[in-house]
């Protein structure tokens, strides 16, 4: 069994030639009127909710004024002024680095933990314990970050939090988690693993389930121990899956998780030095300062880097091992 993110196939037409309207376009519509009528709502949906905002990125190049024509798009053209404003500010390197650093932590710890847990679940023999721990570790995936944030207070608040009570029980000094910026990258990683790592094992588990038993038997006959079988059979066969998951997440490496960070720490300025990411910054610039132009410029920067990273990571994967490429 081959695991793949999903398989977009575009018919026999290559994407580039597909857009060219050929003679017979109207005839094709007349041939299958009901089929084209059925896709119409969906096509309009993508046009309105996905393509109009892409066109709206033109706001990144104007000095946005809400009273200008075309929903502000007709404001004074300023070229790359909004970009210059952002990239010369003191903030950009900090928030870009934070975004990159946190995402790298999330991706690497996530993949390692998922792999470890999947291998572990696969090796477990006590079926009851296995099923129960699997159920428990999948559950947090369905709990929203806002509720996780309520839990986070129970765990990390200074006076009532369990963690500090635990620290005190061992004679340590209490930590003001919500006022100490340096602990948050670690806490965010932990909370994210808590929420997502269990459910993330599903894809690895399915890959492991697809490995032929004969390979394991052959390894056993050759004298491999359990650890040996994991090391020389299971892990190498998880390589492709890992590469695909990695490519999929690398596209979002400059997308900060606003949903998580805003829900967990809100606008707390004391924690900004380590937790302020591009998305929280853009959100603030938009909501608090009404800075549309710069926010759109940063959004465009994110979209383009995301696009380049996905296509680039895929090209590299293809070169190394064509099995691992996504498209």
């Amino acid at each position, binding site marked *: 069994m081959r*695991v*793949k993110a999903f*398989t977009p*196939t*575009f018919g026999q*037409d290559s994407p580039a030639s597909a857009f060219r309207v050929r003679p017979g376009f109207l005839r094709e519509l007349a041939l299958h009127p*009901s*089929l084209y009528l*059925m*896709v119409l709502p*969906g*096509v309009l*949906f*993508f046009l*309105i909710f996905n393509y*109009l905002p*892409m*066109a*709206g*990125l033109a*706001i990144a190049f104007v000095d946005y004024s809400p009273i200008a024509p075309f*929903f*502000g798009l007709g404001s004074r053209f300023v070229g790359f002024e909004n970009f210059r404003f952002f990239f010369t500010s003191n903030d950009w390197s900090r928030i870009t680095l934070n975004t990159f650093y946190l995402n790298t932590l999330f991706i690497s710890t996530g993949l390692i933990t998922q792999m*470890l*847990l999947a291998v*572990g*679940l696969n*090796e*477990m*023999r006590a079926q009851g314990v296995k099923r129960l*721990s699997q*159920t*428990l*570790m*999948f*559950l*947090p995936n*369905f*709990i*929203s970050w*806002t509720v996780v*944030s*309520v*839990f986070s*207070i*129970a765990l990390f608040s200074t006076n009532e939090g*369990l963690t500090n009570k635990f620290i005190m029980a061992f004679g340590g000094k209490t930590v003001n988690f919500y006022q100490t910026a340096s602990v948050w990258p670690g806490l965010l990683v932990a909370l994210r693993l*808590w929420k997502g*790592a*269990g459910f993330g094992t599903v*894809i690895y588990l399915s890959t492991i389930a697809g490995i032929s038993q004969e390979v394991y038997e052959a390894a056993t006959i050759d004298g491999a*121990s*359990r650890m040996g079988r994991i090391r020389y059979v299971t892990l190498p066969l998880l390589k492709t899956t890992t590469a695909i998951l990695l490519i999929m997440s690398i596209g979002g490496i400059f997308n900060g998780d606003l*949903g998580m960070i805003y*829900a967990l720490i*809100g606008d707390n300025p004391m924690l900004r030095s380590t937790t302020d990411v591009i998305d929280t910054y853009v959100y603030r610039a938009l909501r608090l300062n009404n800075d549309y132009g710069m*926010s*759109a410029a940063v959004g*465009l920067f994110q979209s383009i880097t995301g696009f380049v990273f996905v*296509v680039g990571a895929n090209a590299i994967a293809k070169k190394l091992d064509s099995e691992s490429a996504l498209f």
Partner: protein
Amino acid sequence: MRKESLVDRATVAGFTIICALFGLMCLMPLWVALVASFSNEYALIRSGYQIWVNQLDFTSYRLIFSGSDDVLRAYGVTILTTSLGVGTTLFLTALTAFPLSLRSMRYRGAISFFAYFTMLFNGGLVPNYILTVRFLHLKNNLLVLIIPAALNAYNLFLMRNYFQTLPESLAESAKIDGAGDFRIFRSIALPLAKPILATIGLFAAMGYWNEWYRVLLYIDRRNMFTLQFLIMKLQQQVDFLSSSMNPQARQSLGNIPIPTIGIRLATAMVSIGPIVLLYPFLQRYFIGGILIGSVKG
């Protein structure tokens, strides 16, 4: 069967312990919050969060249901947006995916690419905000919680790939019997697509149920808040509910202050209640869903 070596048995034991511990860790915060929501607020502040109830106290739950309409109303809003949202998602996704699965449609490749490109590139926060508020005028309109999330390329391809696995001869014979494309879609394709509809519907339901980001951006009327956004508000402003409690509820407390932490915990527990209770029964559909999406046929 051959007897396993000591090392092998130790390996199994080690992995069992790791996985069981991780499972317990996953349960722990939920348990601590549940216990705290049933505890007396004074006890909570005095001795912190516990792993067992010290003084059983239902005050918080009583207050969020009888002291203010906010929680019940947010429940109503959440159920409404979730059910309408899931319905819209399934309808729109299936309707668009079905023609794209048919070989006879010549422009299906072009249309699929049109959808696929939205996964690679997007406009980001600002253009979406302007689109929603100024072009579509959906500010303070519950439709903003339902429509924009109703269709995405990922679900579309899941659905299309599923339709593609259905035997084409079914549709062919229906066509010979005189059935039109709509008829084939409704009477043949949809009934056969129940498993994938269930999966997409479940994931969509989770998304709608947990929605708060769009509320943060587009809704500022209190009577349209979703449950998750209400919790968000309580996080930022701990007296958000208690400051507007009705006088009877206040009086019934005597001179005890309103348990603000307890109210926040109880609201959170009430909001995840349906998920936690239904989840064990739905688990296999969720897992099935991921696998349908990830296995290359």
